[in-house]
């Protein structure tokens, strides 16, 4: 790890102020990705702004009307085990319980995962399929505009996620084919239906990160049933190929995971 200056902050405002003064600073949330990246010297921030002392203000789960608000510093373990999330959006609680392993879930945060936008991370698919709104210290960004590419988001330098607001869907499910070694999604598909609107988001597969599967959405909007997906398949174009799975296999998995997710969302 390269040398950095360490700052402890107890509020989002102080964190943002410090970030403005330190151009190469990074926010430290759970650190489950940032610290391993720094160990490998793939990241070398000049300063770390530790948000953990601000957890009390930046973490927490609240149901307000037909929305679930989740604070940026809320740990995966707390999302997975929240009665409120389990009741309102069970698919989201299940997704959180599939991330990493128990020790990682105790530490990793939703804000950190969403800000990092790892192409194989789970949360970005939930944000996109559920049409979540990402709140920052400056503005609100819709999920459709937030995820802009591989490890890239609409966040500006020094901009900090404060919470994520998920509209409660009428039906939703997440199905993941985990890489057998890393447990990251080789392909993960999040399907959500709210009113007539159906959204299908795919993680783990796209070479530019999470994306919506338009053909699947159109078919499922006509009829939200697995039969509507007969003859619908994903294209291998723009998908990742690596030693674990080539693009054609990933395209196939998208279809399989989508079908399983629709069945699950329909209680089958």
């Amino acid at each position, binding site marked *: 790890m390269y040398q950095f200056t360490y700052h402890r902050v107890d509020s989002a405002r102080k964190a943002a102020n410090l970030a403005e003064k330190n151009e190469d600073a990074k926010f430290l949330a759970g650190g489950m990705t940032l610290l391993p990246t720094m160990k490998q010297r793939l990241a070398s921030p000049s300063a770390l702004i530790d948000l953990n002392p601000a957890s009390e203000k930046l973490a927490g789960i609240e149901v307000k009307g037909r929305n679930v608000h989740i604070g940026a510093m809320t740990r995966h373990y707390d999302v997975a085990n929240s009665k409120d999330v389990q009741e309102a959006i069970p698919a989201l609680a299940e997704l959180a319980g599939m991330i990493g*392993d128990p020790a990682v879930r105790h530490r990793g945060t939703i804000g950190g995962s969403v800000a990092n936008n790892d192409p194989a991370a789970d949360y970005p698919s939930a944000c996109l399929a559920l049409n979540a709104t990402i709140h920052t210290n400056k503005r609100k960004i819709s999920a459709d505009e937030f995820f802009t590419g591989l490890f890239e988001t609409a966040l500006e330098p020094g901009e900090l996620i404060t919470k994520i607001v998920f509209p409660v869907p009428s039906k939703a499910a997440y199905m993941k084919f985990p890489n057998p070694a890393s447990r990251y999604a080789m392909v993960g598909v999040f399907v959500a239906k709210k009113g007539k609107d159906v959204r299908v988001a795919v993680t783990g597969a796209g070479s530019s990160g999470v994306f919506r599967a338009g053909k699947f959405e159109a078919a499922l909007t006509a009829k939200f049933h697995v039969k509507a997906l007969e003859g619908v398949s994903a294209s291998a174009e723009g998908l990742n190929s690596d030693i674990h799975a080539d693009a054609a296999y990933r395209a196939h998995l998208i279809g399989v995971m989508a079908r399983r997710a629709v069945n699950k969302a329909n209680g089958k």
Partner: protein
Amino acid sequence: MPKVSMTVNGKEVSGNIDSRTLLVQFLRDTLRLTGTHVGCDTSQCGCCVVHVDGKALKSCTVLALTLEGANVTTIEGLATDGKLHPMQEAFRENHALQCGFCTPGMIMTSVDIVNRKGNKLDEQTIRHELEGNLCRCTGYHNIVKAVAAGAEAMAK
């Protein structure tokens, strides 16, 4: 160098450390508590699991400075008055180790599983919950038996 203070195994400790110091380095190098092991240093293997404020964490992937004021328990903190913790005893009884390198992390994770899931654990639950801990010797079979036995013993 910045200063950090925390409670480790019931004792107040502090040290002036490089900001890059990981919790596991603070435990092993500064405090000389070498029961916590470093297997992979990439948060895969779980040899470094300790409890921080009652929850299992991988101490190779958390900065010591971030744990100012925290309450840490390591494998050295489980036994009381020279008597092994029931989970340690269960690992011994069931021959749940061969080389022993993963054992501290296995035991700390196992106690955490019991804290979260209770004293009656089926095999499937144990195997699933241990997915963040790797053992390259045993094939896990005796570890699973030990966790089930240790969990029951912890109820007594």
